[in-house]
């Protein structure tokens, strides 16, 4: 901050003081280091404050007509402006008035006759204090705005995630459970599911690159487009092809989203899917084996217009689980800097089949939590599990 922007007001009824100060500090005035305003009593000083809102330092005499320096201090206190500093100038030995001034919030005091060397030191010290205080306030304001940014992002994310389980209480042919533990700086994970018709369930899990409000908005747009397109019932690959082209227009500075989109046919047990650069989900087979869903050879949404998304199909058996997750699970870190890994997730998944959907998800949530040993999450941790009863 440029300190020459901070004006210094001298309040004194002695008319000779103004030319004296202008003379003593002429170099500093000429170099724009000091910028003085003069007033001759407390009342005039208050008027000048309104006229010059950039006044930061006030040098005030105590004994003045109309309004004295001590009364001025009381009035200044009412302004509650912490970056306004008053230095009182008083007769040598006038300890009573000096004490009163200090108690009324004066920043420092000088004694008359004025020693100009001492005055300069005092002015510089006061300006420095104002500078530090304004800087601290600026940083504080920035911090507040970052926190507001984060809470807006979190609200957007929470608002779009379905959180009622079971989501379709009348359906006895499948069950769904999901969990999203948000990182401090919201990572942009989301999941969603919807009935396309009486037999087919559309579902999605995704992770937006980046964080904060832009990522949250991109997430909300992605989720809305996938749902609106998905309910039309087109094949999975076609759906993401359409959504991708729309998102390419929305994406600024290469923001993108990884998405796994699937359609589960509850009548036939057929699962069709396409994978746009997302971690491959697992099938926890009813017989206890684990199958990683093959990639469809595709990449992220939002960057490459007209990319063709392939659709793959796989047959489910009754009591199979489909477990979907985001990289916040497998890339969680612990104190030693070790990663949770796919292997640890696979090992745990092999031990949880035949458990209800919520227990499967919660076991993994707890295991990741235990693994991290209190190390703050750097990314959202999200899981979605769908059990097919047949």
């Amino acid at each position, binding site marked *: 901050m440029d300190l020459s922007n901070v004006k210094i007001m001298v309040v004194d009824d002695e008319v000779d003081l103004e030319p004296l100060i202008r003379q003593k500090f002429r170099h500093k005035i000429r170099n724009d280091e000091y910028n003085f305003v003069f007033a001759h009593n407390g009342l005039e000083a208050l008027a000048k404050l309104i006229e010059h809102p950039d006044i930061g330092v006030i040098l005030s005499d105590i004994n003045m007509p109309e309004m004295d320096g001590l009364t001025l201090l009381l009035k200044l206190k009412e302004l509650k402006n912490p970056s306004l500093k008053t230095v009182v100038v008083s007769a040598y030995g006038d300890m009573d008035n000096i004490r009163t001034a200090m108690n009324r919030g004066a920043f420092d005091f000088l004694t008359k006759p004025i020693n100009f060397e001492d005055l300069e030191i005092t002015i510089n010290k006061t300006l420095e204090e104002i500078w530090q205080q304004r800087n601290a306030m600026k940083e504080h304001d920035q911090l507040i705005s970052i926190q507001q940014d984060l809470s807006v992002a979190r609200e957007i994310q929470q608002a779009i995630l379905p959180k009622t389980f079971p989501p379709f209480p009348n359906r006895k042919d499948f069950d769904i459970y999901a969990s999203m533990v948000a990182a401090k700086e919201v990572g942009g994970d989301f999941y969603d599911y919807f009935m396309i018709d009486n037999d087919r369930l559309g579902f999605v899990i995704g992770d*937006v*690159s980046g964080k904060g409000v832009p990522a949250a908005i991109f997430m909300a747009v992605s989720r809305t487009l996938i749902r609106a397109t998905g309910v039309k019932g087109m094949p999975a690959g076609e759906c993401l092809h359409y959504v991708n082209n729309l998102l390419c227009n929305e994406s600024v500075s290469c923001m993108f989203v990884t998405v796994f989109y699937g359609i589960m046919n509850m009548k036939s047990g057929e699962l069709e899917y396409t994978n746009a650069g997302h971690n491959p989900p697992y099938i926890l087979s009813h017989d206890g084996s684990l199958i990683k869903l093959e990639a469809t050879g595709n990449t992220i949404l939002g960057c490459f217009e007209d990319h063709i998304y392939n659709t793959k199909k796989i047959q489910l058996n009754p009591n199979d689980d489909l477990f979907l997750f985001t990289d916040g699970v497998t890339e969680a870190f612990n104190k030693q800097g070790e990663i949770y890994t796919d292997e640890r997730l696979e090992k745990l998944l092999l031990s949880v089949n035949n458990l209800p959907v919520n227990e499967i998800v919660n076991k993994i949530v707890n295991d990741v939590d235990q693994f991290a040993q209190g190390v703050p999450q750097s990314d959202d941790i999200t899981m979605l599990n769908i059990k097919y009863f047949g």
Partner: protein
Amino acid sequence: MEIKKTTLNQIEIFEISGRIDANNANDFEKILVQSIEEGATKMIADLTNLEYISSSGLRVFLLIAKKIGKNGFIYLCSLQPQVSQIFNISGFNNIFSIFENREDALSKA
């Protein structure tokens, strides 16, 4: 994250070590974008010591590739297995030219 930049035959080589995640992706972006603004069109990212890259980091590579466009290239080399896996899952292995080692990348440059 640490980045060491060297220049060889007008190719800027970035040795990136540590982790690139949401917390430092912006710094990473600034460094690479600055090079482009100063006129760099040929880049190699040597990832020998890169332990982890999140989607925020992948976004930066994508942004740089788009900024360079057809006037140059950004090649990646020496990916550790766990970083390689992240590139494979996201499909970025098909988008970027990835080489086994720096010599291979330089020979194609």
